[in-house]
């Protein structure tokens, strides 16, 4: 997931830097592809955060608690 978002972010940076004409294409009113692409970065950040937290709460925490109680119980 870390790799995926880094690729996604640098795709945005590279597009902004090397393909400004493409990014400047308007999609509606004064909103162009660059702004949409940029706002999608906000959306993806939120999405990744949500996915990770759900995974951690449901899967990782019970596992971690189990192991920790095993370890600390025997001390």
């Amino acid at each position: 997931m870390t790799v995926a978002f880094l690729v996604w972010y640098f795709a945005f940076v590279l597009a902004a830097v090397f393909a400004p004409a493409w990014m400047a294409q308007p999609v509606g009113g004064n909103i162009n592809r660059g702004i949409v692409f940029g706002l999608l970065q906000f959306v993806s950040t939120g999405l990744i955060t949500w996915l990770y937290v759900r995974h951690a709460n449901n899967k990782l925490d019970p596992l971690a608690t189990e192991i920790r109680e095993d370890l600390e119980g025997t001390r």
Partner: protein
Amino acid sequence: MNATAGSPAVNMTIFLAFVAVTMFIVIRASRTNRTASDYYTGGRSFSGGQNGTAIAGDYLSAASFLGITGAIALTGFDGFLYSIGFLVAWLVALLLVAELLRNTGKFTMADVLAFRMRQRPVRMAAAISTLAVSFFYLLAQMAGAGGLVSLLMGVTGNVGQSLTIAVVGILMIVYVLVGGMKGTTWVQIIKAVLLIAGAALMTFWVLSKFGMSLSNVMGAAADNSALGDKLLAPGAKYGLSTLTKVDFISLSMALVLGTAGLPHVLMRFYTVPTSKEARKSVVWAISLIGLFYLFSLVLGFGAAALVGADVIKAAPGGANSAAPLLAYELGGTLLLGFISAVAFATILAVVAGLTITASASFAHDVYANVIKRGKVSTDQEVRVARIAAVAIGLVAIVGGILAKDQNIAFLVALAFAVAASANLPTILYSLFWKRFTTRGAVWSIYGGLISSITLILFSPVVSGKPIPEGATKSPSMLQGVDFSWFPLDNPGLVSIPLAFLLGWLGSITDPNKADTMKYAEMEVRSLTGAGAEKATVAH
């Protein structure tokens, strides 16, 4: 518009009210400060939500609030690019660093790095890079305070500005000495709430003037800008040549990888009772920071549309004055007063956080573990930390006065570049790479630190930028000399990979193999929280 906008008396009154309220809360909160854990981490008793808000307060420095709004107002899309880097960076903190760090460490970044290494060399290196990053960041904030007051408080002239920097420094020392981490955290929470509320108010105000449409705001901004439609597209700032393009990639790298290596941000993860709360605090921080940068997009374009680039450039603070000028345009003296007080409070909260981090690193790492080899009582350690806080505060005052004419963005970029080069590679290696050794850690930290600072020293930021048309001074730090040979403003592109490389090279050439038992212990502890530091105060 004259040199100072609005009424300095109103600005000053609102700011003094903020100081009075926070000071009251700091004194109340500090009555239970007893142990080292209380002083450094507020007894690990903050909830995820509280800590997340404080992280947002710590992270949204004057450079982001004033700097990014100004950058969007003047360079449009490229300013927006900048803010996205600051936000996306938090995913590194969330996915890789926050929880593991909370479980492994005690007070400072060095606790984690030195966990399975030989203590003294690694701690020393980590403390030096912590102090270096904190120092550059502190300088930036203090210098910013000087510039800000000339605009907002009507304080002009060398003596007046220097005096204001001194007042900020002394206030910060008092917060840190009296309140410790708990007091500092409350200052940051209050400031974050005020900042985000103020930004939200201004955002809706701007949108309501343009029929609640971002498209209309941007259209008006483009009409009112010399750049025209180019304001809305990438390239106004970083698209000039291949060199500026590569430079921007370098800056992006430093932003994304630097955030999770900023020592004052890392230390905030120790103020919560469990790793689950650490995770929750990052989620809060990401939400608040994301929201804030969305606001700043509207505010930046709003400033371009309503105030205009020429007025902003001509104001005393330059680009930094975009947000306050927009506030004046919208709500007159009172809103400007509120926003200026918030901006000033921002600086105060961030410097307090930096000071406590730097003083903790000095007392806990350098004094207690390197000089005294761990044979020191916690009382003594806290006493040293307090003395260090005063010393750091004084150094920051003097440094801030000397640096008050420097470019703030440059100092902040420097801090991020050093954090990304010296801290993050070592943190990642020590959490995830079994065969990482003491030599690897030391090489990586010093390599990243020295290479990033050296490259900046010989970059166009320090010397040799041509004087732009219509200006009398070169944008470089030193005038009239040119000893630059490194073409980029930001060293990240070179120094970050170099630090990773050195960490690897140091580890495989180290005659002492990594302690795999210790790594297994660290892995279990970081993932499960077994044996992690517990909260010392009940909720």
